[in-house]
């Protein structure tokens, strides 16, 4: 559905628009003055605006400029009572896609509308192809970076425990593992603070809210998606499922990280403050904490080293690296193919999956 705002002081023109697109998937909103139009632009999201040049009060060219500020992605078309080269040039200068000379017939209007929508789609596609789509904002990327650093340090200073003989004496000062332990604990505190920040982020920011909503598992869709994807990979289905911003794997990874962090933080704190724990609980609790910390670490490290590294580095479509963690953006192809529902949600454009995939194959 395309939303169009028509601005003209002549109500005949407004009515003719309404009539012309009565049964078309085009929503017409009208305004009799530029001032009203500005208000409407501020409150609603329009794809296109048709505006008259000469109006009492604010004129068409001023409105064009104002509209460009309010909604930069909207396309604009000028309507003039007298066609001159000068006014056409002016219209283009102020960012209009095209112009039309009044009076016009319904057919002329249809033709213009088709042309303009076509141009708009071309323009959007070209823009999408050149800049891609925003996936993660700077805040989330910094959170991810802090996670990488703290996770790596924790791994580096924790792995010696799996191969104590091999790492004998490494990161030691005066025959105690004080340096190793210190780096481990500092990194742990960083990760805990990051987790707390992340909780605040998803609770109190719009972006956090939205992303939480998008990453929250949807049953049964995600389960069906998983089966569907396996079938697609095996060649049983022709097309993959339509994923939202986060596919079932990304959702799984996110909640696995939450689970892992929770388990590691609790068991880690129990080991850090073992003396206090032992004065309250029997000592086997500390033993269990140690075992849990040990195995959960193996699980986490292997998941990152195998699963996450495969998905963001080795996977053929991303090799050698998916740059989204640095740029925060993904390209149009990935967006359409892999986050189809997210594309539909953000652009309002329905995606024909068959068409996309046949395009991709060519």
């Amino acid at each position, binding site marked *: 559905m395309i939303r169009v705002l028509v601005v003209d002081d002549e109500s005949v023109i407004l009515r003719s628009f309404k009539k012309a697109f009565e049964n078309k998937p085009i929503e017409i909103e009208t305004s009799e003055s530029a001032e009203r139009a500005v208000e409407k632009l501020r409150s609603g999201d329009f794809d296109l605006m048709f505006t008259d040049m000469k109006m009492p009060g604010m004129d068409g060219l001023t409105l064009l400029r104002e509209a460009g500020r309010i909604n930069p992605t909207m396309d604009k078309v000028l309507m003039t009572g007298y066609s001159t080269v000068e006014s056409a040039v002016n219209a283009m200068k102020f960012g209009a896609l095209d112009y039309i000379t009044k009076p016009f017939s319904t057919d002329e209007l249809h033709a213009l509308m088709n042309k303009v929508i076509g141009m708009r789609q071309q323009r959007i596609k070209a823009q999408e192809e050149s800049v891609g789509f925003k996936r993660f904002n700077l805040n989330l990327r910094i959170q991810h970076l802090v996670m990488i650093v703290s996770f790596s340090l924790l791994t580096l200073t924790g792995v*010696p*425990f799996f191969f*104590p*003989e091999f*790492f*004998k*004496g*490494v990161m*030691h000062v005066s*025959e*105690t*593992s004080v340096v*190793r332990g210190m780096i481990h604990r500092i990194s742990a505190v960083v990760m805990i603070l990051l987790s707390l920040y992340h909780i605040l982020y998803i609770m109190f920011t719009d972006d956090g809210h939205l992303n939480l909503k998008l990453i929250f598992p949807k049953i049964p869709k995600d389960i069906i998606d998983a089966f569907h994807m*396996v079938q*697609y*990979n*095996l*060649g049983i289905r022709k097309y993959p499922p339509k994923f939202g911003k986060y596919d079932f*794997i990304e959702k799984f990874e996110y909640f696995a990280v939450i689970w892992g962090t929770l388990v590691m933080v609790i068991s880690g704190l129990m*080991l850090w403050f*073992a*003396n206090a724990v*032992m*004065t309250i*609980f*029997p*000592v*086997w609790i*500390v*033993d*269990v904490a*140690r*075992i*849990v910390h040990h*195995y*959960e670490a*193996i*699980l986490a490290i*292997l*998941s990152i080293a*195998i*699963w996450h590294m*495969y998905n963001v580095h080795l*996977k*053929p*479509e991303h090799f050698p690296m998916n740059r989204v963690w640095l740029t925060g953006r993904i390209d149009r192809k990935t967006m359409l193919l892999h986050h189809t529902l997210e594309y539909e949600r953000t652009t309002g454009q329905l995606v024909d999956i068959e068409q996309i995939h046949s395009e991709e*194959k060519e």
Partner: protein
Amino acid sequence: MRLLPVIAVIVLIPFHLTAQECLDCHEDVIDMKAYEHSAHGRQELTCDDCHSGIEVTDEGHEPPGNVNCMECHDGIAELLDHSIHGYTKLTPPVLCKDCHGDHYILSEVSGIGRDFRISLNEMCGGCHVHNEAYSFSDEDRNFVKSYFTSVHNVTIQNSGLIFSATCVDCHGSHLIEPDDSPECNAHSKTARQHIQNTCGNCHKGSLKEFNMSAHGQSFLKGNKDVPVCTDCHEAHLILNHYEKSSMTYPVNIPRTCLKCHSDPVYIKKYGFSPLKQTNYGDSFHGVALKLGDISVATCVSCHGKHKILSQDNPESSISSDKLGETCAKCHLKDNPVDIESFGKIHAMTAHQYHPISKWVALIYKVIIVTTLGFFGFYMSIDLFRTFRNKKKKNR
């Protein structure tokens, strides 16, 4: 008859050579000044007291026979008869002078001088390490040599503490009996049954504790399986516990104890917990120790060093009454909370995993294997699809 000695002296005087007479010819052989400071010189013994039976004629005299020290030092003869240096008829034989020197005994220039304990290692080592005339194996020579780097010798050489143990303190001097021969075994200071007393001569405190310990008690009853000093500290290469290669360096302690405590024969005989069932190696202490962190507890931290007692003994550091105190030595050092409750709960782990620990470990293993299996499956079908699509595209 009473006059007989007097007559003998009078008769013998003309045949008695004075030192001056010997020096007329042998001035280059002996430094009289140094001799006068020696044990014999101080006693005013002269040349022919040792080099006896010399008759000087105009042509000079016959070469003197071997000096027989036993003429005076007759008590030593008996000891030497039983000593490895005496009875084995070594070639070349070990003579008194090999150890004591000849003319300047107990003087500054003698083999065994006043400060002889400092050079004793070199003196014994002269034959036992360096002299190729004896058929010692390299292993034996190195074994003797290893004493040189031991805490005993280093203390003497570097700190001048000459009362630290030298060769003779453990092996004896004139009566050196080997510990590997059945006939001498009963008396040898280094025989297994005497080791603890030999070491205990100096280390009296440790001996007292050892004799009270489970090891010591069993030892006193004649049990020869029980470790003695040298089993944990070595015989020659005894090092301080902070030396990394020492058997008593914290990192090496488990290996030292496990020499016996993981021996299948002893496990069967004495019912030790087999190594597999104890969790020390996987425990926080054990893993940190393997990493080289010596601030963590090793066997001796809880069980004691010399005074190791069974946990059933109320005196034991691991008895249910005292375990709390033992753990608190490290754990509640800075924060003395209720040690009693701390100990009681701690007493529940007798080196065995709690059943819940085992279940948790098992569940995690299953989760890890399942997850990896899923990763493998999904990654392979993902790659399968990618390459199939690529093939189609290329066609």
